[in-house]
């Protein structure tokens, strides 16, 4: 069964993914993602009753380590790549609250 994505579906997914798509992108993605999701449908025919899910392909043993103190990255290095370091040792972002 073909999976069809409406423009509203695509816009809902884009909002979840923090993407502001242009109108032509939304149309193109609706078609392409619909085709890809239809292609995924073949997985539904496989009997996976009682089969555990693989998350780590090699081991599922959690790794423990001591919680030891070590120096963190100097602030000026951490800020060196910021698009807007703001000048006060902080990352500056556009207004959050009205």
């Amino acid at each position: 069964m073909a999976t069809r994505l409406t423009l509203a579906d695509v816009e809902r997914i884009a909002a979840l993914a923090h993407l502001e798509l242009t109108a032509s992108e939304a149309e193109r993605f609706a078609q392409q993602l619909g085709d890809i999701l239809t292609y995924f449908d073949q997985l539904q025919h496989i009997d996976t009753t009682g089969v555990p899910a693989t998350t780590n392909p090699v081991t599922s043993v959690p790794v423990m380590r001591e919680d030891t103190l070590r120096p963190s990255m100097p602030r000026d290095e951490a800020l060196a790549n910021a698009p807007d370091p703001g000048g006060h040792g902080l990352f500056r972002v556009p207004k959050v609250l009205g």
Partner: protein
Amino acid sequence: MPAPDVQTTADIRAAMADGVTAVEICSVYLDRIAAQNDPIHAFTHIAGEQALEDAAAVDASGQGRDTAFPLAGVPIAIKDNISTRGMPTTASSRILAGFVPPYDATVIERLRAAGAVIVGKTNCDEFAMGSTTEHSVSGPTRNPWDLARVPGGSSGGSAAAVAARLSPIALGSDTGGSIRQPAAFCGIVGLKPTYGRVSRYGLLAFASSLDQIGPFALTVADAAVLLAAIAGPDPADATSSAEPVPPFSASLGEPVAHPTIGVPWKLLEDGVDADVSTAFTTAIDVLRTQGATIVDVPLPHAIYAVPTYYVVAPAEASSNLARYDGVRFGFRAPAGADRPDLDTMYNRTRDTGFGDEVKRRIMLGTYALSAGYYDAYYVKAQQVRTLIRRDYDTAFERVDAVAMPTTPTVAFGLGERSADPLRMYAGDVFTVSANLTGLPALSVPGGRDPSGLPVGLQFVGRAFDEATLLRLAANYERDAPCWREAPPTAVLAPSIPAPTR
């Protein structure tokens, strides 16, 4: 005895043992890069002065003549999604334009300690998502065997650099075939280690349960040397394995006695180009002549590997790429006068900063993980992943390795598949299983098609048994000499200088 066109790490070290300096070696490769990077476009950043300084430090240290440091003074190219302190690292994405990491990936720390000299960063598909190296903000890399064709991807720049003799070795990353497929298309050796064999710390994450860093080289012996230098546990990566790292190089000279090699013949029935099939059958005959027993292995769920992969990888990518938001590093879209708020900045930064293929996968992954679809897509795919692994576990009860072509076709033309994502994804049919199962897999040059384009022969092995893959491939390589020839655009001059004493 390598042909003169093959300059291995051992050749470079032999020259250094005879008095050639690391600076001279570095200059040779920088000159070649200057001569041929345009038109191949393997490198997006050439280290130049920095590389020469690093080489001078190796000369001062004396490591270049110390056999405990087999990579000291050897140039290496690094895929641009591996973090290098003080050197641009962009994953070929606009969203990381101008990013210069304040830290080295663990593999880079290890290579620096080993005295390897980084000559530059190589082009890739954006965030390693693609099979052609066409999805790069700086434009495509071209295949050194035919400049009208793709080098494969996503590590196409690293593969093209080694094939064109612009660097003797390189690092790439492999999430669904991104080392092995370009190695096959470019006629060189590429190895995806077992998941956990090599630290992922400092690798720009794409799909965390699939990603591995691994070597490119002209010969199996060089791939072994490079793997040994980067392998082993790392406290900074909790998924790195404490499994002991065997001496890969030492065992290369001993062929596996009477190996049993499985071939999934049924999987190869459909969709494999006739020329690739012919080359593969010839390669299997070579293995037989060498004493291998070839058996049929059913891998009944392998046909589902591509759809499984394209659920799992985008799901993990959609989460990993959430960090690119225009706040802490990289590109930020200018705030619009219409809506100058934080959310609009995020959304516009991400829409302008990411290319189409990355956006497609973020959207797919977001959908597969969203309420109401999580069980049907993500959980289902993770269950099928278990079934694919069980098929391999069953096969390994009676075989030492599984062999198949690395890719169903040889390198195709630039632009030929970029408009059709599903057609592009279908080409990953033989490579993605190794990532889903975590198993190690190696591609070695396995012949040519009638027009001279390389074909890759792939071996998949047991978890943490890279040693067997390397031994099988080294033995095959000895009797299948196609790897000795350089592609037409390879740069063989300047050559490594003659010893000064």
